[in-house]
């Protein structure tokens, strides 16, 4: 079996340009690898579509300036790809087929990448283990008894398992970064609005952001280059016209780094703190200035997340009612039809969040909870912005512990949220944040998170790429 997919994107591109391989060779390798593992990373695999797209690409000249030409990519199953099922890992959309491309998918197609399938996830992206998937959880390639993280678990696993070099995830409260941490890959949640959300099935609209997942930092930046930009269809999107790889390789000496004391407090397991501190030492030795700081409201993120995300979710998921698409159970009255469809169609966690969210927005509760949460969210954002006046970046571990056993969270609906205790701030503030591997504990990977002020992705990639290089990761 060929091993082209283990090469760097630059090397693969070189082979394509020199006509030593064709896109179909990459696609066949993806299919082989997909067939030879049981990671349950995909909900839909589009083998025929990928093959025919690869064949079509043979008809055109390989674009020398487009590193992504002919490269396979997997898409999280809450992002619409025209003609493919888009299930959100839910029974209610089990047979729902997209009738349009998300804007991000249009960009991927313009780059002549090859979409091979739709990845497994927590139902409607609600969870941090991917276990709430109606199709069963994807498996962590490092240990099949461990969770891969979530909600973009499938998108992380398909890269960690070597099936594809790229995937798209979505991140509402850590859903790209936490699975990246658990599976040893690189995942970026860009600045809110950096990537169009048009075509992403909304969970919490003010927090959701699509982002690239990849094997290394450089390739992550390449993919972000391809998918970012202003989209007329998404009023929250924006354009900056920049190359996110441009600062990679620059000298990191003198970079000012803040580590919130909260991120290395007793909410994080000692082994994780130990590895993290080793990385900080390396950065200091490399000339970075590192301070441990207090950030106001930092401990409020989980509560804010629960109120805001669930409130918005209760509204966003109202459209799944059996009237126009998706699962539809019949009833004697319209109310009975709604009730049966939604009772049958949604899983436990989704129903729990819809109910809590509805309650939080109900009557006076909206003022007591939602409006107050939005106000504190603003304060939290400001306190981070205050830090960013003095520091280039904020660092911490991505997750408080390594991947844990499957089915260990099931009885406690709150423990899952605690997994995201270190990553939700980026969603609250709209800040970009990336997780990259920083080491292993008991053969299980753990990620380091780099967060920056709005629009600072290039700076994050610069430091991330440096760290990756001194830790021995691949960096082409």
């Amino acid at each position, binding site marked *: 079996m060929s091993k082209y997919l283990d090469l760097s994107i630059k090397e693969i591109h070189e082979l394509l340009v020199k006509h030593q391989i064709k896109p179909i060779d990459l696609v066949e390798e993806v299919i082989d690898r997909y067939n030879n593992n049981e990671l349950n990373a995909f909900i839909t695999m589009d083998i025929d579509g990928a093959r025919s797209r690869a064949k079509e690409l043979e008809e055109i000249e390989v674009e020398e300036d487009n590193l992504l030409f002919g490269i396979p990519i997997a898409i999280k199953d*809450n*992002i*619409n790809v025209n003609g493919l099922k*888009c299930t*959100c890992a839910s029974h209610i*959309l089990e047979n*729902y087929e*997209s*009738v*349009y491309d*998300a804007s991000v998918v249009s960009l991927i197609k313009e780059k002549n990448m090859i979409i091979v399938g739709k990845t497994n996830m927590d139902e409607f992206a609600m969870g941090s283990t991917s276990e709430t998937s109606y199709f069963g959880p994807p498996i962590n390639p490092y240990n099949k008894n461990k969770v891969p993280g979530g909600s973009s678990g499938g998108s992380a696993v398909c890269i960690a398992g070597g099936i594809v070099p790229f995937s798209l995830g979505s991140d509402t409260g850590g859903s790209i970064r936490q699975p990246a941490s658990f599976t040893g890959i690189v995942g970026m949640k860009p600045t809110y609005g950096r990537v169009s*959300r*048009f*075509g*992403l*099935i*909304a969970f*919490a*609209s*003010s927090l959701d952001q699509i982002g690239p997942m990849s094997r290394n930092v450089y390739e992550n930046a390449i993919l972000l280059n391809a998918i970012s930009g202003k989209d*007329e*269809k*998404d*009023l*929250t999107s924006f354009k900056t016209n920049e190359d996110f790889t441009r600062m990679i390789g620059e000298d990191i000496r003198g970079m000012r780094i803040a580590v919130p004391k909260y991120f290395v407090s007793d909410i994080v397991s000692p082994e994780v703190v130990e590895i993290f501190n080793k990385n900080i030492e390396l950065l200091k030795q490399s000339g970075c200035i590192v301070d441990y700081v207090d950030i106001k409201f930092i401990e409020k993120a989980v509560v804010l997340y629960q109120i805001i995300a669930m*409130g*918005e979710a*209760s*509204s966003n998921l*109202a*459209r*799944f*009612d059996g*009237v*126009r*698409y998706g699962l539809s159970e019949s009833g004697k009255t*319209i*109310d009975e039809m*709604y009730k049966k469809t939604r009772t049958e169609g949604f899983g436990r966690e989704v129903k729990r969040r819809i109910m809590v969210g*509805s309650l939080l*927005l*109900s*009557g006076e509760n*909206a003022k007591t909870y*939602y409006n107050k949460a*939005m106000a504190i969210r603003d304060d939290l954002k400001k306190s981070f912005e205050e830090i960013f006046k003095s520091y280039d970046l904020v660092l911490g571990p991505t997750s408080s512990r390594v991947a844990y056993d499957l089915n260990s969270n099931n009885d406690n609906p709150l423990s899952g949220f605690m997994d995201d205790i270190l990553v939700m701030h980026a969603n609250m503030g709209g800040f970009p944040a990336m997780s990259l591997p920083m080491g292993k504990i008991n053969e299980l990977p753990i990620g380091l998170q780099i967060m920056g002020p709005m629009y600072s992705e290039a700076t994050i990639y610069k430091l991330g790429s440096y760290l990756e290089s001194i830790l021995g990761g691949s960096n082409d």
Partner: protein
Amino acid sequence: MTDYKKTIGIEVHVELKTKEKLFSPMINNYGSLANSNANIIDLGLPGVLPTLNREAIDLAIRACHVLHCKINHHMHFDRKNYFYPDNPKNFQITQERTPIGRDGYVEINDNGIKKKIEILEMHIEEDTAKSIHAKNNTLLDFNRAGVPLIEIVTKPCIKSSREAVLYLEALRELLLYAKVSDCKIEEGSMRCDANISISNSDKLGTKIEIKNIGSITNVGLAIEYDARRQEELLSKGEILKEETRRYDAKLDKTILMRVKETGNDYRYFPEPDIPFFTIDDEYINNIISEIPLNAYKRREKYLNAGINTINVDKIIANIDICDYMETLNDVNLKTASNLLLGDISAYLNKKNISIFETKLTPSKMKDLVEKLDGNIISNKNFKEIVVDIMESDLNIDEILEKNNIKNVVDNKEIESLINKVLENNLNVVSDYLNGNERSLKYLMGQVMKESHGSINPAKANEMLVKLLEVKR
């Protein structure tokens, strides 16, 4: 024993006449094939996001201006969450916290007594799909889903059904002439709900809402009916509950739809997909400067031009004709209005088209009016050529030639023709000079006969009298 007073508030939904929908680039058009004007956004498919149609904001600013509302400079939208099959996302995007307009008024004139009907607020929101109930099924037409609406809410300051009707007529005229909406109640582009309570004390009575009343006249009738109904119940000692009713015009009755539950819970929160936005004074003033002349000012102008009140009312009631009047420069509006309200309207009604779809350009109209005023052509001539005028690209002179209308317009020619007639009828002339008025009619007939009808009769009559008087 008791004298019940009515307290009435009115809510009006008006569809804005935008090219596209409020949150999607789909065409906004009434009367298309069902579901042909609905895209993925209008259908609320998973993953779609709203965009914001600036034209809707602009028209709402116009509406605010003509209703004297204060305009909100910093705005956002809110989600109103409720489940209903005609509501594709199961939330409606509306403005709960920052309505675009507040504290306005509409002035009504009740037999010379002026009163301001106060407007509490005006907000922008999206329309729902249209439910069509067919036997055991409900069909949904999403053409209407996402059409921009403004909702205009009065304070409970209306005291009678007459005031309510006058308010709605005035409101409709203001919005129509600001080109905000076509305000057609029968097509649903203007929809009226009335809230009415009665009380014989200082305390307000129980509010009854009458929804979606089919015409302005019916709003008055519905209020009258329901006030009588409430009074009968109260005089029997019954206690009223808050209800939603509808008005059945055939029965002249309001009919219970549902009793209102305790406080609807719409779980409002700010729409996260549409960022807050700001409109500044310069922007607002630009929009306001584009508002066409209102009906009040047009009415004044027409009265000053010597058009009678009845005809002015007729013009104002027909905005198409009225807009056409506004295209006329340096034209005798009185003559023009007679033509427009007479044979031209008859022609338009017969063809069921707008005057703007005809070949009657303003310059052609000007020529026509001048020819009529100058007695170059007669009204009779005009009737003969009206169809050509409306349908042909030819100018008036060419049309006259084509229809073989050659009027003698040269005074000397007319004079010699009349003199010839007088010479041939000396007896009749002397009859006339002796005071026989009927002789004039005979002579006039002879003149027209001699000229084969090619002299303008008014002109001929005038000259005939003049030449006869010379002989005195």
